[in-house]
């Protein structure tokens, strides 16, 4: 039945999705938290090109033992990808990223020039 064939192909197809993100400012850092459940650590890629931060990652290929038949599938094979435009000067050497429990946390320290600096008024 061709519809079954379509369903099987669809389950195997890889789609590209935007991971949900929280962007917040914590002290002197801009922090991004992205939901990337099931991502394979080896495929995670965080790239800062000019003012654009590019985040990429790929699902772990789940190989279930042969005896299992799928009954109901909502999770897909995905490639996570998202671009962020930064409008603050960043200290590029201080960017840190870590991945735990399916969440990628990137912390970008603001450059000294972007920090508010009090200007003394000469009297």
């Amino acid at each position: 039945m061709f519809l079954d064939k379509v369903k099987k192909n669809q389950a195997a197809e890889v789609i590209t999705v935007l991971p949900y993100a929280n962007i917040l400012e914590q002290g002197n850092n801009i922090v991004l938290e992205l939901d990337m459940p099931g991502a394979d650590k080896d495929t995670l890629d965080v790239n800062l090109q000019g003012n654009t931060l590019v985040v990429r990652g790929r699902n772990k290929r789940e190989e279930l033992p042969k005896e299992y038949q799928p009954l109901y599938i909502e999770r897909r094979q995905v490639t996570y990808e998202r671009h962020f435009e930064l409008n603050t000067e960043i200290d590029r050497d201080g960017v840190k990223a870590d991945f735990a429990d399916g969440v990628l946390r990137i912390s970008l320290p603001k450059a000294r020039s972007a920090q508010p600096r009090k200007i003394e008024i000469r009297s």
Partner: protein
Amino acid sequence: MALVPFRGKDNWWMDPFSDLEKIQREMNRLFDFSLARFPMGENTLLGSQWAPAVDVHESKDNILIKADLPGLKKDEIGITIQDNHVILKGEKKQEQEVKEDNHYRSERFSGSFCRMIPLPTDVDADKVDAKYQDGVLTLTLAKKEESKPKQIKIDVK
């Protein structure tokens, strides 16, 4: 959902199924993906703000459930087996709301979630294996002996 024959510019009459296939595929992709983010219906209890995407697989002896639950700690997830449903619930605590923090964007789900997953057979609640890794919860449930498919021998006299 009924499929409507598509009379497009292409030579659909050459391969009458390819366009239907395409529409079906695109609609499925739209619905599958959006349902995965908000699987509502009888499976979600009122009051929960979101529900995880879930896969259910079955073998002769076991039922395997995988759920996408990023950013939770083990003690924030509650797993209950009731009648022949698995109930996944929990509370994703708001990450400490420090007052000086400026939140520019807040897309990630937070708050409580609850999802009831119907099982095809009864399972043995004492033999459940739960693993939480990289934001994915994997549950392996052993089917009750009487629920396993049994080959019945035919006596030919």
